[in-house]
């Protein structure tokens, strides 16, 4: 059975293809369209998935959309009505937005793909999150907790799933918290207040929190109150996201926390104002963690299960995930590589396969590499045409050479195999560097990523060596498989891992098993033989404001525009020559004189 999953129209659209119960491929639209967080209907992603599997659309048994658009529209309309008359300015925009293509999803899918509308299915948003979390995890029974900004109505849901011995699958969501009461919206509101981009820069709030003290927890608790049944409500007097599209926090919020940060102004932690922002981030982070830990603990007591699957965009908050693992009572916590809405494309397809069509349970490969491949031959062609020095090496020579490069302090762009699904580079589209010196961190921030400096870089370490450098609790290595947790760097190593250790002594480490990314694993070992520490700095292969690179040519232009010293794709290794930039201008001058002489 061939099932296409689609997520779109909110943030980060994606498509995923499941054939006979197993994912075959999945990719986010932004990686193909090259527009960060692209939320448009993912035509390119769908096209790539179908091409990859050599399928025509009419061969699809079902196309599953990741939420119920009419239910979402109902929520938008109801919220406008509830906020009457304050919603008068937001109402026309909301209607124009929703009544565009967002509501007519069935029509859009059938017109683009020519699939009969009877084959188009809709899951609920949090069912998709739950399926993406549970059905991709190597567990047979687990509790499920999904949290995000909002889907249709739900913003948080709890339940459990079971893959039964007879091949049947069950996913049961027990209860939910509904919009506008939302942990995701709370965090996004603080993201906006702190001058960062909503739906994109939430990780910066988490990074900034490391520099602050939670001195404003009491104020945050006035904004989000716990209810007697263990849930929470937002005091809507502090928010405007439910009434306007312009601003998510209200004047009362500003009275409580002080003036918001101007996004253009850099945060200076030496000043009282900068410290206030850091404290504010630390406070909302603390409240978010406390609330999640509490809800997870209750869920653990209620279900008696040992495994927990986390889904929804909030599950990208590694600090909170680590506390859930440590304090809720669950022994193992699973977070997929794409817990956000992009992963819902895969979740929706798997949900339809197991629950709607009752297809027998299958193991889903435990890796994030579902996208287009990187083609080293293509890199060789580009390098040849542009007159760059390149080599095509056999695997072991290439890895040894790359380890030499890294040990010599060079920054390496690393492209290997299929692209990751989700926001993190997990070894196939990474920028790698030596993790030891603060100077390396600063160089990466300044010359390569062009971004704020308070965000820590992540390390990658082989699973064999992980415990030596990082304090991993039981279950920690699993959480770190897709960089979903934040763990202390052992004190004795902090100085030698300065480029990847956050100000609070932690790191968002990726613990790598050989089978998941064999070449990177071998590289880690080769680097360890040279430096004595088999740890590398691993950050996503992109520049600030751009999606992670997909094709080799995108890696190549990123390499050319930044301070990356070496680019590796497949078997090809490319290095920078002295001043490549002068050449194109010279060429134009040449071609001009050629033109002139030929005109004569």
């Amino acid at each position, binding site marked *: 059975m061939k099932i296409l999953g689609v997520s779109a129209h909110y943030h980060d659209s994606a498509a995923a293809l499941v054939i006979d119960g197993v994912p075959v491929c999945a990719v986010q639209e932004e990686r193909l369209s090259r527009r960060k967080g692209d939320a448009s209907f993912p035509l390119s992603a769908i096209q790539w998935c179908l091409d990859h599997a050599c399928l025509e659309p009419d061969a699809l048994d079902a196309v599953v959309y990741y939420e119920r658009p009419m239910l979402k529209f109902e929520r938008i309309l109801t919220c406008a009505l509830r906020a*009457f008359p304050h919603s008068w300015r937001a109402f*026309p925009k909301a209607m124009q937005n929703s009544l565009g293509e967002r509501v007519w999803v069935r029509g859009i899918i059938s017109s683009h793909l020519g699939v009969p509308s009877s084959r188009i299915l809709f899951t609920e948003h949090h069912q998709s999150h739950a399926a993406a979390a549970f059905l991709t995890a190597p567990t047979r029974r687990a509790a499920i907790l999904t949290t995000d900004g909002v889907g249709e109505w739900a913003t948080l849901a709890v339940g459990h799933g079971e893959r039964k011995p007879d091949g049947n699958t069950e996913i049961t969501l027990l209860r939910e918290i509904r919009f506008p009461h939302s942990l995701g919206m709370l965090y996004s509101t603080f993201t906006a207040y702190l001058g960062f981009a909503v739906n994109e820069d939430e990780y910066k709030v988490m990074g900034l929190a490391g520099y602050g003290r939670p001195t404003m927890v009491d104020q945050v608790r006035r904004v989000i109150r716990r209810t007697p049944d263990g849930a929470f409500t937002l005091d809507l007097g502090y928010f405007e996201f439910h009434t306007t599209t312009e601003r998510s926090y209200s004047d009362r919020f500003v009275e409580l926390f002080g003036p918001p940060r101007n996004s253009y102004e850099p945060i200076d932690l030496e000043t009282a104002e900068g410290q206030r922002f850091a404290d504010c981030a630390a406070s909302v982070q603390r409240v978010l963690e406390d609330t999640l830990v509490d809800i997870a603990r209750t869920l653990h007591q209620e279900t008696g299960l040992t495994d927990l699957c986390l889904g929804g965009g909030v599950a990208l908050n590694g600090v909170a995930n680590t506390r859930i693992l440590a304090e809720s009572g669950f022994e193992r916590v699973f977070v997929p590589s794409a817990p956000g809405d992009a992963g819902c494309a895969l979740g929706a397809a798997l949900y339809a396969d197991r629950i709607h069509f009752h297809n027998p349970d299958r193991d889903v490969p435990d890796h994030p590499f579902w996208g287009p491949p990187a083609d080293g031959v293509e890199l060789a062609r580009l390098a040849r045409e542009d007159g760059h020095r390149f080599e095509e090496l056999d695997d072991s020579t290439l890895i040894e050479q790359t380890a030499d490069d890294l040990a010599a302090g060079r920054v390496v762009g690393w492209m290997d195999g299929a692209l990751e699904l989700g926001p993190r580079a997990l070894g196939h589209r990474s920028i790698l560097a030596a993790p030891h010196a603060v100077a390396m961190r600063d160089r990466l921030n300044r010359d390569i990523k062009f971004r704020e400096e308070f965000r820590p870089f992540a390390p990658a370490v082989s699973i064999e060596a992980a415990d030596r450098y990082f304090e991993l609790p039981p279950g920690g290595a699993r959480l770190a498989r897709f960089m979903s947790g934040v763990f202390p760097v052992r004190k004795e190593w902090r100085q030698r891992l300065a480029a990847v250790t956050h100000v609070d002594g932690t790191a968002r480490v990726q613990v790598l098993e050989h089978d998941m990314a064999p070449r990177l694993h071998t590289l880690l070992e080769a680097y360890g033989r040279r430096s004595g520490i088999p740890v590398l700095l691993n950050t996503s292969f992109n520049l600030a*404001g751009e999606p992670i690179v997909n094709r080799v040519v995108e890696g190549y232009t990123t390499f050319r*525009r930044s301070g990356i010293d070496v680019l590796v794709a497949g078997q090809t290794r490319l290095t920078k020559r002295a001043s490549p930039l002068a050449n194109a201008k010279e060429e134009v001058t040449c071609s001009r004189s050629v033109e002139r002489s030929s005109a004569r």
Partner: protein
Amino acid sequence: MIFEMFRPVHRWIWCDAERRAHKLLRFGETETDGGRDLVRASETTPDSLLRRLYLEHAIDEHRHGVMFRRRGNEILRSLAPGSNSSFQADWLAPSGHGVDDLRVDEEPDEALLAFLHLSEKNAADRFSVYRDVLENDIPTRAIFEEILRDEVFHMNYTLTQLARVSPQRHGRTLWYERLRRIWKSYLRMAAALGAVMGGFILTVQYFVILPPFAWLAKRAERRESPGWAPVSPQPNRPLQRQY
């Protein structure tokens, strides 16, 4: 040049330091965005010389973005806190590639080069006016001066390359691109007007039709208890339904 005629207006727009800072910051964003489009162009073109040129052009635009942002921030920092001039006059003094929208993937090189040539020409015209009216802010003026030199290079290489890739028809392509720009600005205006009219009609409906429903919705909301809500007990609500 129509743009030249508004020199006194531009002098007024640029005289306020805070407005100037915000303009520079916004210009910074536009230049960076323009740079990304050019990166995309370099990634999609089959012509290897164009790939190199687009990429170099992209690097220039990125640098312009950095320069504008840095200067904007410098000016902001030098201002007394709390000052606030909200009127930005963006439509009067647009940035380099301001109102241009570009679907790089869909354009053949010929059309893209014509598009870029005209954009760069516009940008150069605007920036030279901005430079001239900034006689009291020497550092900002120097930035425009430096950027202008690049824009002239961009303007020239796009024309030369257009003549190379389309030796027979480049004049026609340029005219076609000029007409397309006019058509596109008409479409933009029409869409904006449509949105305003649509917004107006929806606002009228909001106040005329919605009040009784709003009353009902508020009443229903008051009955809702805060906290957990049960998830409907039909786990297999048919997936054919959109609601």
